[in-house]
């Protein structure tokens, strides 16, 4: 037991729930419009928006080059597929 039975959040001890996954989400840079609809729906808060790499920007359609793209944290992603199902432009696919 810890002192005073107070337990503090410690990410070192966090179960890596990514182990549960049998399908993982992948984003298609040529489709993602950076709307971040998927972000709050992710049960594990695994999705962060980040800047596009030069390679990704090249693939992106003209109007969205400045927009961010989704980035997954595979340490905690359980592979439920909610992000893929809520994506309005079907930019996320679940792959084995």
């Amino acid at each position, binding site marked *: 037991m*810890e002192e005073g039975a107070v*337990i*503090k*959040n*410690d*990410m070192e*001890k*966090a*179960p*890596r*729930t990514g182990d*549960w*996954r049998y399908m993982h989400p992948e984003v298609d840079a040529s489709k993602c419009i950076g709307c971040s609809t998927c*972000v*709050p*729906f*992710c*049960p*594990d*808060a*695994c*999705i*962060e928006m980040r800047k596009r790499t030069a390679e990704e920007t090249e693939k992106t359609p003209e109007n969205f080059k400045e927009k961010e793209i989704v980035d997954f*944290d595979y*340490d*905690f992603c*359980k*592979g*439920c*597929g*909610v992000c*893929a*199902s*809520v994506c309005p432009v079907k930019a996320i696919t*679940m792959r084995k």
Partner: protein
Amino acid sequence: MNKKLTEKLASGHSTCAGCGIPAIVRTVLGATDEPVIVANATGCLEVTTTIYPYTAWKVPYIHNAFENAAATISGVEAAQKILLKKGKIQKKAKLVVFGGDGGTYDIGLQSLSGALERGHDFLYVCYDNGGYMNTGGQRSGATPYGASTETEPAGEQSFGKAKQRKDLMEIVAAHGVKYLAQACVSNLRDLEKKAKKALEIEGPTFLLVLQPCTQVWKFPTSQYVSVGKLAMETNFWPLYEIEDGKYTINYTNPNPKPIERFLETQGRFKHLFKPENKHVIEEIQKTVDANVERLVNKVKE
């Protein structure tokens, strides 16, 4: 891990893949920048976020039994008052209770009623997944009519739950609560707006949030948002709020989809599509229509 979303509830909890409860918690707690203290009745949220030696909570968190979440937060509120008076703290924290439908509709109802009546300053959030999901899906007062559950399974003699669900919103409203609202996990913007409003109000407030359960409602893990959306579009789950006794409808579908569209997405209603159970679907449709009509009349009052 998304930094902003995990300010109060971190990743690494073990809710089922595709569970909407964390989205509800993060949205409600994200609606305020002030410090919060959370009390949590026993239920899915509690068992999955606090597996020893890890806790996903980054805010002060008290777990208590099924029946006394609201009583515990009453004590926290009273303690805050006296500490403030003695000058030991400078500012009150916002108090939030999370309870499932088992801990709110059934077992925790008396302590909730007591806390509402005494008028403590807290927000009670009930995530309603319509049953005791973490123990395998036994029926609760929130389980909808006709659903097959562990304790009321559908079979030759039975079509599942034979009783209508409890109208908890009316029960809470009868306490003269200043603000209460019904929301759905599929519409997080609406939920955030309601949480913000509720947290700003002094005195007890209440939110009832629909939470489609992938395990026991039996649908694919990726579908909780779309099942919740169908619940709204069929008018099974209208979004409304009651402020000082005044009803406001936030969303009902003027051209509702037939209730079958919602029922057919879930394994727990599969048996209703047999010809001998047609009357059950008709009954559900009738209740849904009557409920919307009742709300519309309430708004006119």
